[in-house]
Each structure stands twice: as C-alpha cells, then as structure tokens.
C-alpha cells in the first residue's frame, strides 16, 4: 500500500490546499474549478511519471490496482471490488447526466477581455505632450469622470464599483494597462462597452461611450493621468 498510499495522500493534500488553503491566504480568492482540475491533473501526471520510472516502482504502484481490478489474491476485498464495478459506471453516468441535463446555472464565461481594436485605432500616438501640467489636468478629468468606478487610487475600487459585474479594471495591477498601448486605451475610453467588437461578446462592459461627452484631447490627457497615477507605463516599441 506504500507506493499507492503516498500518491493518494498527495492528491488529497493538493485538493485540500487548492480548495481550502490557497483561497484563505490574504489577498487571495477561491479558485475556479477549471483551475483546480488543471492543477490536479498535473499532480496526477507527475505521480504516474515518477512511479513508472523503474520496473520496481511501477510494479509497486500499478500492482495493487491491477490485482484489485483482476481480483487476483485480494481475499476479503472481493466485495469492495464488485462494489466499485457497480458504482463506477453509475458515477460516470451521474456525471454525464449532470453535465448534459438542462440547468438554470449560467454557463461559464470565456469572454475576450482584450479584443483587438479596429484598424483606425492602432498605432496612434498620444498627441498631448507628457508635461506635469497635462498629467495634472488628466488626473483632474480622471477624478471627475473615471474615479467613481475605477477608484481614486486607480485600483478599480471606486464607490460605484461594487455595483458592476465584471468589476471595473484595476489600473494599478501590472497585468492591465501596462500591457497595452495608449491607442488601445483611447479606443476603449472613446467607444466604451457598446463599441466592443463581435470578438468581445457577450459585451459585458458598463464602460460609457465617452466620445459623446469628452473631446479627444481630454481623453488623451486622462490616459496620461491614468498611467502616472497607477505608476505604470504604456506599451511602446521604442
């Protein structure tokens, strides 16, 4: 049972860690089941690889399973074996039913967060000079128009943020605006959620279409203010 017991303990420990320990680390959150399954699959692959590196370890690992499945010299475990043979197909059937039956649970989301911008918005450079005055002005516009949702600290935690799903973007996160060119932000601010292309389906964004209210120059200044306030730099090629 040694060679088989350790992998079982490892799999259980990994599941407990991913499901109950990791979400409770400060600043963390529960993991979606897709990620838990992915990590468990990797763990299982690692176990199989390691246990089959030599003939002895392979026999110690597969042997008990093989004996159990073939019923060879398992003595009093025969009843459990028959139980597994009956329960396993039922479990598979239940899982299949559960995944195909009509349900009121909304489907998983795999929306494209950053769809490609239209051609006319690619390669634009910010026409507003990066001066302290322009940045200050941009921050002022940001405070007036953007901070209610995106937050005074540029962290996506404005007073109105809690009302939105998905939540407003956190600009202080190095994986958001720091990955994008200024022209991309210009497009998103100007056209808003309603201007998302087909690729951005199901168009879940409450971002207003600011072109109706703000001149282009203000939008460019807001972009300067956002990057400066969030301590990030836009993606450039120079």
């Amino acid at each position, binding site marked *: 049972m040694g060679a088989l017991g350790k992998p079982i303990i490892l799999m259980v420990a990994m599941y407990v860690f991913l499901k109950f320990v*990791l979400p409770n*680390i400060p*600043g*963390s*959150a*529960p*993991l*979606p*089941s*897709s*990620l838990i399954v*992915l*990590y468990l699959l*990797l*763990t299982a*692959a*690692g176990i199989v*690889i*390691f246990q*089959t*590196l*030599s*003939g002895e370890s*392979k026999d110690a690992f597969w042997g008990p399973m093989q004996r159990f499945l073939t019923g060879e010299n398992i003595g009093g475990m025969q009843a459990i074996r028959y139980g597994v043979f009956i329960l396993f197909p039922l479990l598979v059937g239940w899982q299949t039913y559960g995944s195909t039956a009509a349900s009121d*649970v*909304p*489907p*998983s*989301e*795999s*929306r*494209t*967060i*950053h*769809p*490609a*911008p*239209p*051609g006319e918005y*690619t*390669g634009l450079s910010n026409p507003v000079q990066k001066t302290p005055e322009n940045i200050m002005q941009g921050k002022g516009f940001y405070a007036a128009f953007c901070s209610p949702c995106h937050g005074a600290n540029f962290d996506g935690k404005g007073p109105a943020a809690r009302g939105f*799903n*998905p*939540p407003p973007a956190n600009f202080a*996160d*190095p*994986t958001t605006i*720091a*990955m994008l*060119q200024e*022209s*991309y932000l210009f497009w998103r601010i100007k056209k808003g959620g309603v201007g998302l292309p087909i*690729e951005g389906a199901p168009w879940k964004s409450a971002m207003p279409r600011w072109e109706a209210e703000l001149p282009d120059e203000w939008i460019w200044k807001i972009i300067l203010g956002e990057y400066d306030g969030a301590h990030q*730099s*836009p*993606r*450039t*090629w*120079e």
Partner: protein
Amino acid sequence: MQQGVGTIQRALRAVGGHGGWLAGLLLIAGWLALPSIGLAAEGATTGPTEYRDIPYIGSRNLIWIVAQLHLLLAGFVLGVPIFAWLCEVVAWRGGEKRYDKLAKEFTKLLTSAYSTTALFGGILLFLLVAFYPKLMNYLTDIFFPSFLLYCLLFLLETATLYLYWYGWDTMQEGRKKTLHIFLGFLLNFFALFIMIVPNAWATFQSSPVVISDGTAIERAWAATWNPTWWPINIHRLIANVVLGGYICGAYAGIRYLSSRNTEEREHYDWMGYVGNFIGVFGLLALPFAGYWLMREIYQYNQQMGITLMGGFLSWLFIIQAMLIGVLFLGSNYYFWLGITYRIPGSESKYRKPMLWMLVSLLLCLAVWMTPHSLVASIEEAQKMGGAHHPLLGVLGVMSAKMTVSNLMILITFMSFVMYWRAGKQDTAGWATFGKAVMGSVLVLASIAVIVLGVWGYFVPAIVRINYFSTSQVLIVIFVILTITPLTALLLKSAKTTTEMVWGSMPPRAGYALVLNAVMVILLMTLMGYARSSSRVHWHVYGVMRDSSPYAYSPALGSASLIMAFCTFSFCMIVAFIFWVATMGDKAKGGHGAAKGELPHGIPAMAGGSPDERR
C-alpha cells in the same frame, strides 16, 4: 502474403516508383475539384469568378486540410535531411559506421515522404487555383519571378536527393564519400531555399509590403522581404528539425515495440534515443524563435498581435502551453527511463534528482498553463472579483510565461547532462572544481532568470521585452554553452563504470516517443491555424479583403476538429509511407537470408533499393 507484397513492389516499380501514387491521388484531387467546376459556371455569368466552392466540406476547409498536410509533410522532408546529413558527417569524421547506417535509414524515410509532399503541394496548388482564382491571380502577379525560382529549386532538390540516396552505397569510400557529403550539403542548401521561398508568399499575406512601381523582380523582392519573413523562416527551420526528430523517434519507437530480436531492439532503441535527442535539441531553441516571431507580429500590427495574444485566439496559447508541457514531460521522461534502464544501477543514484526535476517542471508547467482570464462560472467569477484571480492572475502574463519556459529549457538541458554523465566516474584532477563551477553557473542562472521575471512586472513593457526577456534567453544560452564543453572535457578522461545497455527499455519508452511525435504534430496544426486566423477577414492583410462566404474565423471548437483530423490524417499518411518504405525489409527477411546477415535499414524505395542494383 510475401508473394502479394512482391507483386505490390513490382507494380510500384513498374510505374516508376511513385507514379502509381501520383496517378491515384491526382485522380482523387480531380474528383474533388469536379463540383467546383460546376459552381464556377454560376459565377461566370456575373463577371470574373472570384471564388468557387465545394458542397458539404466547403472550399476553405478542404484547402485548410490539404495545406496543413502539405506543410507537415514538408516540415518532415526538410527537417530530416539536416540531421541525416549531420549523422553522415559524424560517421565520416569519427569513423563510427553506425551513424552512417542511421543517416541512411533517415534518408530512406525521407525519400518515400518526398514524393508525397510534392503530391500534396500539387493538389494544394490545383485547389487554390480552382477555389480562389482572384487571390491566386493577385499573388501570381506579385510573385511570379519567385514561382519560376521555386520550380528550378524543386528540380535541383529532386535531382540532388536522388543522387544522394541512390549513390549512397557506391559513394562510400575516399573522394566519392566526400562527394556524397557535398551532395548532402547541397540537398540541405536547396531545401532551405525551398522552404523560405513559399514562406515569403505566406508571410506576405500576413504582413504585406506592396510597391506599385518598379520591375517585376523589384516588386517580388519587396513583397518577399516582409516583416515576418525571417522570423517565420527561423521558426520553421527549427520546428522542422523538431518535427523530423520526433517523427523519426516515433518510427524507431514503433519498430522497437515490434522488433523480434536483440539486434533490432538495440538498433531501434538507439535510433529512438537519437530521434528524441534531435527533437529536444530543437525544442530548446524553439521558444526563443517563437517569441521573436510574436514580437515581430505585435510590432508590425498591434491589431494582429492582440488578436493572437490577447483576443479570441489567445486561448490557443493556453492549449499550446499544455501541448508543449506534455512534450517537455515526454522528452524528459524518455531521458529518465534511459538512465534507469540503459545504465543498470543508476536508478538509486538519480531517482532523487529526477524527482526534483519533475517537481520543478510541473511547477513551471502550472504557471505556463494558468490563463490570465480564467474559465469560471458566474458564481466563481463573482467570488474572484472578476475573470482574473487576485493572487494567481499575475501568472497569466508574458513575464511569468517567459520565465518558466526558460527554466523548463534549463531543466531539460540538465536532464540530458545527467543522462550523459550517468555510468561514468570522473578521474580528472579538476573534477570537483569543474562540477562546482557548473553547479554555481546553473544556480546563479536560474536565480537570474527568476529575478528578471519578477522584475519584469515593475518596468515598462518595452524594457521587459527588449532587455529582460532577451537577457533571460542569453542567460540560458550561456549556461548551455558553458556546461556542455565543461562536461565534455570532464567526460573525456572519465572512467566508464557501467556500460550502456541498448535494447533494454520498457515498452512505455516506445509509447513516449510516439506521444511526443503526436504532440508536435498537434502543435503545428494548432499554431498553423493561429497564424492563418490572425489575418481575420483578409486574404492579404489590409490589402485584399476576403469577400467569400467563409470570411469569418471558425469557432475554436470547430477549428479543433479540423486540427485533430489533420493530425490523425498525417499520422496515417506517415504510417503508410513508413510501411511502404519497410516493405522491402520484410520481403528480404522472408526470402531465406538469415536475419543476422541483413544490415538494418535496407531500403525499398522507388525504383528498388541501392543494394539490389549490385
């Protein structure tokens, strides 16, 4: 049965080797193109025909499948001569005859695959002309000088290949051998150009450079030298070696599993090792080339870059991570099995290092496979506060991916070094010092790669892309270039404590080789789709719009079906080619000669084997 096999062989020879294939497959192509002729008539009433279609399967799907199969076959045919020739050179300079025999066996596989590749190229051309006449007119107008060059190259490549293969046995000694080596060089030289010329046509569609004035040659040259041409050339060159290596490994794996005597087991075990080594050797460099290609695409056009890496095609890169992960695991597993089974007594010594390497690989893989935007139900997304996990979300961006891919390359390289060193005892006086230097280099390099990866989050993107990522790559190259010669020097004076035992690998080693080959094929079909789809609704990006009914990107699920079909079909085609190629071995084996007397890899190619002509 043997009589039947003999009849097939005679029939094949009677029609000039591959003539039968050619005729049969051209008939199928003609049959497939028939409905398009009927549909063409409809288009002809309103003006020049721009598109034709074919019922049920659809013209785009058919082109997709044939193009992908042609590309896979071409990758194999252009990749194998590189290492077949290198093996021959090793045998020539080092005097180890087994490398010459191996090179010949690789070339045997090549010869039979070559005509099939050309055949699929012909079918693809017919179908393109039939289904996309407007596009083909446009491309011909720009590229016709290179079309002529391509035809010439093809003639030269074919002639060189036949001379190289059929002259193998007669050009074995003295100056004749030198000539044969030169022929092998020429074969690779022409093969390189045969690859890069059509690459220009494909990359032009993605990143076109169009000049309206100038001569035909000037226009063709400008279109050829487009921004993604050389990144694709380098990426495909390396990928072809990887594909060729792993397919040869899979071939050896299957032959190993079906071998009936010790001699065969030893030979195919060794051949499998060489195939895996070649695959890994290329695999170590492939992520660098891929990164350069993506960087050039991003720089060329932000829209295309985002479509690929951040838009709807970004999921393909998560699948890519999974496939590359399996490939890394499979290759390392094969090395580790080699240590355990080929070098008796090594298992206890290396089991712990293998465990640590495995755990490190899995951790890296977990990072690589973690998407930035997670697949989550509404409820799960609400708990996370969006599609990004607050803690693990940072693993979803390039800084993390580049770091772990570099670490995985380092680990795989160390797996190879461990295999290389197993069964040997250092005797050099400086051995302890040398090992300390190597260990320090490895540890410091790993730390530097991780530090640069973490630091990458806190600097502007351009600093990360231009300096940090390239530094990570240079560090890994430095490690490889430092540890390889040091190990070689150390092993020069080392005492062999345990002799390598070939032919003792368990069956799962053979299956691992097959799995690796399937993963590489899947990867190529996946990224082929990604590259083509990044043009979205353009035939030639920003220049010629796709106005056919197929001007949309297929859903990822539908695309994956075609990818799987292409992978399966390619495996079947390769299996068939190899079966035909080895038919002669079996026939000879059954005609009375003792098995032990037969050299391995007796070819049974078009026109008969060289041995038969003696």
